[in-house]
């Protein structure tokens, strides 16, 4: 259990992670006491070979001869699970953003948070630094926490009702809803049907890229829930603008009101506060703002930033205007809303070049100087003070004694456990909740080793408390981190017969329990789907684990009738084929030859095509079947071919109205014709079915095979009658 126990190398600091305190209201209002920060930005410059480059070189050598979008899948999780930063802005700041044509300050900041420009150095629990250039954060509103939050009730967490309004009276836009995803994907499929796969606005409508979009939408704006803390805010941006006549007073008020936002109880309020002064370059005097900012700096230390923006609205034709990038991580509901309001008349949002640079700088400085050090500090403190007690020999005794006490009498059980079964959550300051937070922070900082060992310890705790959702989530993350760790290992480590070698079979018990808990105990379809599909994506990156990946994807399909709506089911079926496609050609590894899985791939493609055909999506059928001919074209098995023809017939029937399509079909035809008379015979049958003119040969064939069954039927009927 304590296999990966990492005592940090750095000296044990007695400091708790400290948080800037509110200006206490007892102090004078004119000169409120603003506590200065104790943080120092510690940016380490150790440069070990970074995890990511290793991973990419590994997949480069291993997956050289087959097409995998491994770059996408291996980093998908790292891009999806990133720190969330809440924004709490004053009214005048939001007004400034509105003047610029944005909904509020959060929307102005949001696109720039998704990728932090430049390299970011992160220290892991061992004190080794790693440099990443693809770090990102998510900007959310303070009130979104409330809207996206899962309300907890006695009967376990229930998802928010589909059509209702949120607590703040808005149409819900949060993620974590399979029905929204279904609607969105159905829209994209339909659009691909209309455009016949022609790229529009550079959007690729192939199955793979649509599936990628689906995954990203699934992982966007995940609900704020008690059992995982990824979506809980790591920090809160408190923003005021230079328009405010009483800036210090406003900051104090914002601090107080930020604390009073009724965010769910399980969300810890010990987040970092980051203060931003937005200076209006067009209206206000920079001297005044600068003086104010100096004052802020004196009080808050590093955790503040002066953002210089122009307040006038920008249009494309302006000098130095740049188009604001699209948010990539928006939820399905948000995209659906965008589609609904989408008319070509609305011009793209623009900002002055200087504004865009200023926003990027804000994000980068905040992440580099405040958020990363803060999270590192939290991880090391919690690791020292909470987690280390639970690992090692004493931790084992502790959990053992707890377990035995728990079974001996129910009263001591409930007293020893801090799990609140009424709200089915742990209060944020209990060791269990803190450890989960530690593991999640470590995960977000990409220290998967620490995360893995912490999740592993947590599993048993949650199980003895019967905190099923927590238990399932920790099982899920243990499995995911173990795959991530194995993927990050160099190739020769994988093939060596070390005892710690990762095997997909070792995931089985973990995921079994997780799936069971998610589905049966918690009735959370979304969490179940996410768990399975992420496992599939991670396993798929390694050619050795393709079978396991496909097996898990099949499991998702197995219970698809209760979990997945039809379009998503078809997509997942296609994904199984994609999993096998990773091994479409044999792989030669050092120890053995791994045979190809091209027939499996072809079968799943046919299955997916069948699903699409049932829904009448002919374009998808065609695209899916394109890869199939290479396999079935050379097989002289009439039954197989006839079925594929019948699937194809579905869309060929209506293809005649489009000239370009028939040309395209001609090429497909020509490419897969290896066959002889059998093929012709099939072609003839097809014509019969299409009620075209009948030649003598066709008539012969018609009588020979097609009418066999009806005749027999008649015969038996007359037999019965006589």
């Amino acid at each position, binding site marked *: 259990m304590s296999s990966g126990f990492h005592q940090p190398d750095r000296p044990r600091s007695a400091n708790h992670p400290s948080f800037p305190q509110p200006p206490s209201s007892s102090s004078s209002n004119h000169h409120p006491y603003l506590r200065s920060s104790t943080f120092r930005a510690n940016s380490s410059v150790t440069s070990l070979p970074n995890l990511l480059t290793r991973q990419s070189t590994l997949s480069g050598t291993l997956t050289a001869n087959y097409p995998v979008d491994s770059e996408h899948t291996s980093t998908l999780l790292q891009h999806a699970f990133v720190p969330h930063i809440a924004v709490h802005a004053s009214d005048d700041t939001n007004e400034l953003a509105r003047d610029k044509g944005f909904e509020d300050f959060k929307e102005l900041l949001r696109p720039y948070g998704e990728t932090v420009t430049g390299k970011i150095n992160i220290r892991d629990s061992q004190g080794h630094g790693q440099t990443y250039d693809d770090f990102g954060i998510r900007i959310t509103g303070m009130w979104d926490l409330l809207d996206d939050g899962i309300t907890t009730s006695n009967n376990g967490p229930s998802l928010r009702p589909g059509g209702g309004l949120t607590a703040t009276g808005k149409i819900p836009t949060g993620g974590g809803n399979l029905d929204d995803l279904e609607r969105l994907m159905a829209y994209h499929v339909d659009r691909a049907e209309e455009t016949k796969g022609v790229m529009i606005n550079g959007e690729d409508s192939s199955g793979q890229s649509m599936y990628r979009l689906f995954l990203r939408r699934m992982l966007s704006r995940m609900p704020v829930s008690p059992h995982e803390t990824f979506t809980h805010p790591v920090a809160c941006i408190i923003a005021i603008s230079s328009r405010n006549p009483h800036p210090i007073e406003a900051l104090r008020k914002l601090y107080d009101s930020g604390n009073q936002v009724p965010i769910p109880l399980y969300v810890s309020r010990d987040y970092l506060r980051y203060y931003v002064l937005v200076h209006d370059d067009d209206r206000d005097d920079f001297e005044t703002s600068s003086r104010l900012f100096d004052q802020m700096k004196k009080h808050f230390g590093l955790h503040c930033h002066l953002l210089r923006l122009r307040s006038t609205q920008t249009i494309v034709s302006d000098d130095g205007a740049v188009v604001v990038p699209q948010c990539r991580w928006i939820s399905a509901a948000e995209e659906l809303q965008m589609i609904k309001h989408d008319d070509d008349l609305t011009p793209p949002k623009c900002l002055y070049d200087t504004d865009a640079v200023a926003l990027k700088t804000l994000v980068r400085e905040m992440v580099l100087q405040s958020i990363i050090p803060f999270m590192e500090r939290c991880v090391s403190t919690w690791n020292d003070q909470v987690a280390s007690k639970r690992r090692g020999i004493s931790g084992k005794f502790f959990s053992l004694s707890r377990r035995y006490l728990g079974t001996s009498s129910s009263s001591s059980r409930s007293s020893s456990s801090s799990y609140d079964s009424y709200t089915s959550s742990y209060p944020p300051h209990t060791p269990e909740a803190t450890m989960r937070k530690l593991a999640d922070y470590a995960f977000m900082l990409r220290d998967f080793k620490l995360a893995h060992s912490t999740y592993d310890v947590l599993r048993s705790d949650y199980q003895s408390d019967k905190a099923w959702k927590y238990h399932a989530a920790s099982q899920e993350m243990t499995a995911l981190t173990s795959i991530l760790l194995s993927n990050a290992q160099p190739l020769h480590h994988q093939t060596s017969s070390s005892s710690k070698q990762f095997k997909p079979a070792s995931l089985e018990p973990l995921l079994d329990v997780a799936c069971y808990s998610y589905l049966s105990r918690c009735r959370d379809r979304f969490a179940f789907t996410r768990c399975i599909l992420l496992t599939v994506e991670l396993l798929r990156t390694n050619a050795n684990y393709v079978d396991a990946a496909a097996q898990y994807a*099949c499991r998702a399909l*197995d219970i698809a009738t209760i979990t997945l709506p039809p379009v998503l089911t078809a997509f997942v079926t296609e994904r199984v084929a994609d999993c096998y496609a990773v091994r479409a050609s044999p792989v030669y590894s050092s120890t053995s030859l*791994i*045979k*190809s*899985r*091209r*027939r*499996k791939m*072809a*079968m799943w493609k*046919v*299955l997916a095509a069948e699903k699409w055909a049932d829904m009448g999506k002919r374009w998808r059928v065609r695209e899916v079947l394109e890869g199939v001919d290479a396999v079935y074209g*050379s*097989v*002289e*098995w009439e*039954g*197989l071919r006839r*079925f594929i023809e019948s699937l194809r017939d579905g869309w060929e029937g209506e293809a005649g109205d489009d000239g370009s399509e028939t040309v395209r079909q001609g090429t497909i035809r020509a490419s897969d014709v290896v066959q002889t008379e059998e093929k012709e015979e099939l072609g003839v049958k097809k014509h019969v079915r299409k009620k075209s003119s009948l030649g003598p040969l066709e008539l012969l064939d018609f009588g020979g095979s097609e009418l066999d069954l009806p005749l027999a039927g008649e015969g038996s009927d007359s037999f019965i009658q006589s």
Partner: protein
Amino acid sequence: MSSFYFVILGTKDNPLYEAEFGTFKQGGDGVSRFREEQRHMNQFIAHASLDIVEEIQWNNQSMYLKVVDKFYGVLVSCFLTAGNIKFLLLHEVKSEDAIRNFFTDVYDLYTKTLMNPFYSVNQTITSPIFDQRVKQVAKKYL
């Protein structure tokens, strides 16, 4: 009532002989109960399981490879002849010994077919006698 789908595949993945039958055990009448959509799937499942057969045939000494693959509720058992002809049986219930006996007897029948001077390897087996005998073997063991 379990149903069986039996196929003999040639060296080029081409089917030499296909048959469907139901169980005779527990009062079965020997008629297969595949649904219509299952029927064409059987062929795809059999074809796809060749990937697995090709992988494990090199790690296995015996000709009877037992259950090689499964697709939801359907199990695929395989018997590999000396001439790289594959016997595949799709079944729903696991019964290794019965299937082994079935395969051995069919192998016997197949060898006899092979000895026919008018039959060459990879040719479709159209003989009604062969069909009849296979069904008899099925009745005996399955």
